[in-house]
């Protein structure tokens, strides 16, 4: 079973739609038991870090996510919540990745909104995805580059377009809104072997 974490942030519907287009059914839930048992779990998100973390903590979902041993994907704000802490609302996050989340310096338009290219692709999430493929980003905060970076992007400065460690995967961009490239990345996540 594939589960999407239901929480107080937008675009859950978009992820559900994208999975449907790939022929996959999913459940949307905030039930800790459902989420810990799911074969694959997706934490999507458009929203604000501190209120999203507060929502997860209230329901004990922070522990559920951290303790997962099966493939787990964070999207956009989901990636930022997987990191150690975020400058947005000065928020303590899940700490799955040690990378810090910072606000873009206002040297160009912020948010970073639109299609930008992926480089330095590594690992199973990007199988069959060509270097320099464009994907869709909308964000004002970014995760620094670090040892877990598996795709890089450059806007104002180089940052992590995707992170991965063990069973955890995360993309700063929206695969569900990134045309065929995004579909390939979601399909790659869905076919990761069950643990």
């Amino acid at each position, binding site marked *: 079973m594939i589960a999407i974490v239901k929480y107080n942030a*937008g*675009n859950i*519907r*978009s992820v559900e*739609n*994208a999975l*449907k*287009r790939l022929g996959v059914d999913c459940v949307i839930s905030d039930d800790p038991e459902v989420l810990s048992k799911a074969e694959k779990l997706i934490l999507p998100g*458009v*929203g*604000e870090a501190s209120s999203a973390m507060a929502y997860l903590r209230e329901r004990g979902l922070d522990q559920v996510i951290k303790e997962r041993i099966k493939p787990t994907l964070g999207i956009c704000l989901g990636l930022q919540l997987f990191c150690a802490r975020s400058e947005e609302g000065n928020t303590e996050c899940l700490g799955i990745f040690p990378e810090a989340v910072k606000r873009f310096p*206002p040297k*160009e*338009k*912020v*948010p*970073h*909104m*639109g*299609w*930008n*290219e992926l480089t330095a692709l590594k690992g199973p999430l990007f199988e069959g995805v060509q270097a320099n493929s*464009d994907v*869709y980003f*909308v*964000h004002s905060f970014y995760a620094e580059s670090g040892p877990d970076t598996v795709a890089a992007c*450059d*806007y104002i400065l180089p940052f992590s377009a995707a992170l991965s460690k063990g069973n955890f995967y995360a993309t700063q961009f*929206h695969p*569900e*809104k*990134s*045309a*065929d490239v*995004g*579909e390939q990345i979601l399909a790659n996540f869905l076919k990761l072997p069950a643990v």
Partner: protein
Amino acid sequence: MLKKRIIPCLDIKNGRTVKGVNFVDIQDAGDPVALARQYALQGADELVFLDITATIEARDTLIQLVEEIAANINIPFTVGGGITSVAQAKALIRAGADKVSVNSAAVKRPELVQELAAEFGSQCVVVAVDTKFEDPDWTVFVSGGRTPTGIKTLDWVKQMEALGAGEILLTSMNNDGTKAGFALDITEAVASSVQIPVIASGGAGTVEHFATLFGQTTASAGLAASIFHYGEIPVPELKSALKTKNIAIR
């Protein structure tokens, strides 16, 4: 490098596109879902749907349509037209719209933009600005461009940014429908006075117009309707022509 976006805009009335779009592979030229899919396949970077009916009955039709569009395309899209409240925006966003655009209602009650940004985040809030130059100033018009507000365009976009707008969709009424090119001066004046992205609209007629827009202004995107709908400049041709001019295009 962040790419410049090419955005086709579709006018919707009672759940149908207002003007038929001439795509060879589509039999029903009035079906917004089929057209949206075709544009997504052609490489459009985003889509904008403007509902020009905005009656109460048409609202439900619009929400159903947004659900269908969201289920069928894999690129972001904005829905606008007659949105006056957070509740209306919420229905559209729940149905799957990535962003909503507001225009006249923001002039009537600027706090609406603040409320939308607080509820959905700035990235969901597009403020559409219809502007017209009448010596000596560019000012804002509402109600489909019929009513002058006397508000100076540059003051207005700064206020909208401060209230939480995530993007400005700027239409020059002097240029709209002329196919004589975008209004470069006001586009750049707006783009350089706000931090948020600006979508330029009005006047696109040739590939060269987009090249000039992206070469001479810091607009993030160019929006057009008829040149795409009537196949005058197919999206793939526009994009490949701009690439050969070294413009950052997906």
